[in-house]
């Protein structure tokens, strides 16, 4: 069974505590979510997400506070604008847009957290491994057909 590598950027004020709440209230969420705590969802710049895929991730989910609840009052505004633009950029270059997802999870929504994350895990499982890397990054990742792509080896 394909176990996708999913990177979750959790805003420390809302989603991270929401994830803890999901844990303490025994909500099940898939184990292969690798959580990264960020001061705000706005801190997740597009390069970080592209770098995550370059390092072998299959899916990236960014969870932040609801609009209007941001601790820095406009951080999630920026993310709300950035992620759709990034998704279309990645789609142009060959990455299914469903592999990047943005959602709002407040500190009290433990169950929403586990629902969103499990749902995301299933969509990525359906999509299969990301065809993004040209060479394995220390792990056995399906790679694009090198000979077709790289006329020049070495």
């Amino acid at each position, binding site marked *: 069974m394909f176990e996708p590598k999913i990177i979750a950027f959790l805003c420390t004020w809302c989603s991270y505590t929401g994830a803890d709440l999901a844990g303490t209230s025994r909500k099940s969420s898939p184990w292969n979510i690798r959580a990264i705590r960020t001061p705000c969802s706005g801190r997740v710049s*597009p*390069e970080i997400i*592209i*770098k995550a895929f*370059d390092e072998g991730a299959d899916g990236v989910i960014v969870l932040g506070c609801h*609009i209007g609840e941001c601790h820095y009052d*406009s951080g999630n*505004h*920026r*993310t*709300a*604008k*950035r*992620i*759709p*633009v*990034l998704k*279309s*950029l*990645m*789609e*142009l*270059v*060959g*990455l*299914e847009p469903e592999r990047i997802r*943005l*959602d*709002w999870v407040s500190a009290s929504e433990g169950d929403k957290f586990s629902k969103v994350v499990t749902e995301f895990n299933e969509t990525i499982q359906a999509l299969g491994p990301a*065809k*993004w*890397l*040209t*060479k394995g990054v220390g792990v056995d990742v399906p790679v*694009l*057909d090198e000979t*077709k*792509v*790289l*006329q*020049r080896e070495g």
Partner: protein
Amino acid sequence: MQTKLLQEHAQMLLDTAQVECVIGYSLSPRGLTRPMFIYRGEDVEQLVWNQHSSHNLAKYLREKIVDLGDTGKVAVVLKPCDTKSLNVLVAEHKIDRLRVHVIGMACSGVVKDNNQERLQDRCVECEMKQPLVYDYLIAAEHTPEVSPGEFDQDSWQTEFEDYSSEQKAEFWLAHFDRCLRCYACRQVCPVCDCPTCLFERDDSLWVGPGSSIQEKRMFHLGRAYHLAGRCTGCNECERVCPVNIPISKINQKLAQVIEGEFGFRAGIEAVPSPLLTVVSGKEYGG
């Protein structure tokens, strides 16, 4: 005809010391049209305006204003599409509009470098023949009309839509493989002007010194993203690329997305990109 008017106007500006430098185009000894900087009235006859005036001279404004200290004014020859870059620079407070005297040229399109009869892609579909912003307009009563010719947009756009994601990835990787990382696309861009580029850090945080194909892709994607909502489609990056990578296709795609999402086109007026500002009423998404 426009050349004559341009030279007279430049002569007037320089002789009356309204500006200290005129940035325009001139012919190189090999007959190549290239950027030129005129400081004295008697050099104005070097200024030309022709179908090869493709460079976006807004690129030089920022460093020329800094060179002239804090008082001097600069005159610059701008095509309609270049004036959009000027708007972006002014919107982001990169240059002081009062210190720039814009000589707006009505434009009927510039031709490709290697194929003189064909207008560049951006000119074929361009419907803005008059500059948006100008202090002095040089109209085009009768500039020689080059037949626009058909635009091969469809050969690139439609056949690309039905590619699978893997084919798309391999299409772009094949192009990026040729990239020399010479950064000409970044250096020629008027709005792409960070003091130290994110991708040129000594500690190789995002992109290392090597030129593996993934690092080249990371550079091009990151650069394209940083121009989302700021790129005005002058396509100079694609013209200068020594290995013909279709860079501006990425920027055009993002421009379409920004227009779809926020109904905003870069450079139409001096308003910063929606990505740089906080969400307003109708823009709320996600």
